[in-house]
């Protein structure tokens, strides 16, 4: 063990000097000593967060609050969330005797790799945020991901589940040791599905048609199946009131939290974080105070200037319609005259693919709104975007289409629109941000 830990630490040190990724040292450590993660003495609290969306943001907020309360938190802030990255994190924070330093180990865990990571050790607190259509080129579909996560779910972890997601809730079926979080019906909740596809039409348990009392968005809401009885569980941590216009939510009927980013999706991340922090012993008053107005540092929202235009860059995951919908809904929610730049150049930063069927799952129709004055479609897939938008009611005159991001940015700059939004993925992020003035 000593040797493996030493190798891992040295490799991590060298890797940092050369700004290399953090998965290689762990990968080598696991080769040298495949069971090392089961031998290491971990802290009493091991918190894991998995699911399709919101992992990184949720983990960042948990770390912030716990550290503020004086806990030493070891966490994968670089988002290396597969077993190799987790091994690097744990081993480089170990004594040579194999005892991990810190009060809390906090892990963002890739939903497909959780079963490998948690075959060596189990989280004490295990959050599953949601299951959406995400990177289907590698994930297949949400039920496939459900099956992939299943082996890592055991009675020996305190499960913390999103009660509003019918598929995630299945993890808690017939289990007792589950803490549920969710949101009560709000003024913005709808009776019907409002998205182009509906993953809540059928019960994930018995596959009979499912009903909803209300939906917050997509298949997230208050569902019930008359056939098998699968339904939204009573919640332990609840957003009892959410006013997205003023940006204030109330948790458990008494804790007011102000939102730095007024989006319903962000509300769920805050709620999951609230639940975890409360369960590990932080007072709810302190959590509410700390998380209020918290601005995420993970670079998912970036302010920029382009000539005389002010812009907001909203990182939205390609191959993830709900992530795009989140950005689009945010833009529409601001309701200010603006131009919207959508860039789809490289679908993924991990693999090369021309798979663009996910464009058809995004609610682009929402952009048919008076406040959106112009829509710029850029990158290698600009024509695919144009085709997609041609099946909405958005007038063609509002569209600008250009495969070349650089020349397009010059033209957008010359138009001097006061307000811009940019919607694109990590894989295309720097192609835009390197051409504008990023505001700290």
């Amino acid at each position: 063990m000593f040797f493996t830990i030493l190798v891992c630490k040295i490799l991590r040190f060298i890797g940092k000097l050369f700004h290399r990724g953090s998965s290689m040292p762990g990968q080598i450590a696991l080769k040298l000593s495949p069971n090392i993660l089961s031998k290491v003495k971990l802290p009493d609290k091991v918190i894991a967060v998995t699911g399709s969306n919101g992992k990184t943001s949720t983990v960042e907020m948990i770390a912030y609050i716990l550290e503020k309360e004086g806990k030493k938190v070891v966490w994968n802030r670089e988002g290396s969330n597969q077993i190799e990255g987790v091994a690097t994190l744990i081993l480089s924070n170990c004594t040579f005797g194999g005892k991990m330093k810190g009060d809390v180990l906090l892990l963002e865990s890739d939903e497909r790799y959780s079963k490998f990571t948690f075959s060596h050790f189990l989280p004490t607190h295990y959050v599953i945020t949601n299951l959406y259509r995400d990177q289907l080129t590698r994930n297949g579909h949400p039920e496939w991901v459900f099956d992939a996560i299943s082996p890592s779910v055991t009675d020996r972890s305190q499960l913390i589940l999103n009660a509003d997601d019918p598929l995630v809730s299945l993890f808690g079926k017939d289990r007792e040791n589950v803490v549920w979080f969710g949101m009560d019906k709000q003024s913005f909740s709808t009776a019907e599905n409002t998205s182009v596809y509906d993953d809540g039409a059928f019960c994930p348990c018995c596959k009979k048609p499912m009903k909803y009392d209300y939906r917050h968005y997509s298949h997230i809401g208050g569902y019930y199946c008359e056939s098998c009885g699968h339904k939204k569980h009573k919640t332990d941590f609840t957003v009892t009131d959410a006013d997205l216009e003023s940006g204030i939510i109330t948790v458990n009927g008494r804790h007011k939290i102000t939102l730095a980013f007024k989006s319903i999706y962000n509300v769920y991340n805050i709620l999951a974080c609230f639940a975890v922090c409360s369960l590990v012993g932080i007072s709810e008053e302190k959590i509410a105070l700390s998380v209020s107005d918290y601005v995420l540092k993970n670079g998912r929202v970036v302010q920029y200037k382009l000539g005389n235009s002010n812009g907001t860059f909203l990182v939205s995951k390609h191959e993830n319609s709900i992530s795009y919908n989140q950005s689009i809904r945010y833009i529409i929610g601001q309701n200010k005259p603006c131009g919207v730049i959508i860039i789809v150049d490289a679908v993924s930063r991990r693999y090369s693919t021309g798979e663009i069927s996910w464009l058809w799952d995004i609610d682009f129709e929402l952009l048919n709104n008076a406040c959106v004055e112009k829509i710029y479609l850029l990158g290698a897939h600009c024509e695919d975007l144009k085709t997609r938008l041609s099946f909405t009611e958005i007038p063609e005159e509002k569209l600008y289409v250009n495969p070349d991001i650089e020349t397009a940015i010059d033209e957008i700059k010359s138009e001097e629109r006061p307000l811009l939004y940019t919607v694109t993925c990590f894989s295309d992020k720097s192609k835009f941000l390197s051409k504008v003035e990023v505001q700290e």
Partner: protein
Amino acid sequence: MKILHLFHNLMNLYGEYANTLALQRELEKNGKETVIEKQSVGDKFDFSSADFIYIGSGTEKNQKVALQELKPFAEEISAAMDRGAVVLATGNSFEMFGKKITDKSGREFEGLGLFDFTVTESDKRTVTDSLCEFKGKEIIGFINKASEIFGVKNPLFTVKQGAGNSISDALYEGICEGNFYGTHIIGPILIRNKIIAEHFADLLDFASK
């Protein structure tokens, strides 16, 4: 013209609904007013007035639900094709029309039995960009499946790159028998390949004369 979109809310992965929109646009360009009718679980299926029947991709579980629902109507679908209706089933929906599907646990599901092929699901997914040939022209798309299809006599495409019906039958993809078209290629295929949308529009044009 009437496009019947079956299981629009059950077999609804990968934006496949857009195939019906692409065909509608193509038909309307040719001056044919076209309606898209959606029928799914709980509806009374009516194939009698459909000119085109479409089913898209679903999860492996949802495919079994759709298969169960469609079972009593195998003959009606056959009859619809006999009178000229065209059927397009994309993704794993076309697997329902064979003899049997064996799931990854080994459980067998009897298919609709319109064709002789069999399907074996596994816990490995085949995911690949796809390049095929159809009537001498290139077809692009993507395959995202957890199954292999054996015993297809008349495939739809010749594979140039990507995956075929099975590892042992890697050069051919999909099935084309009479008015039945099946393929695992998603895209949506009619959106990304205008020539296929045109092919179906021509077929329907011919059938209506």
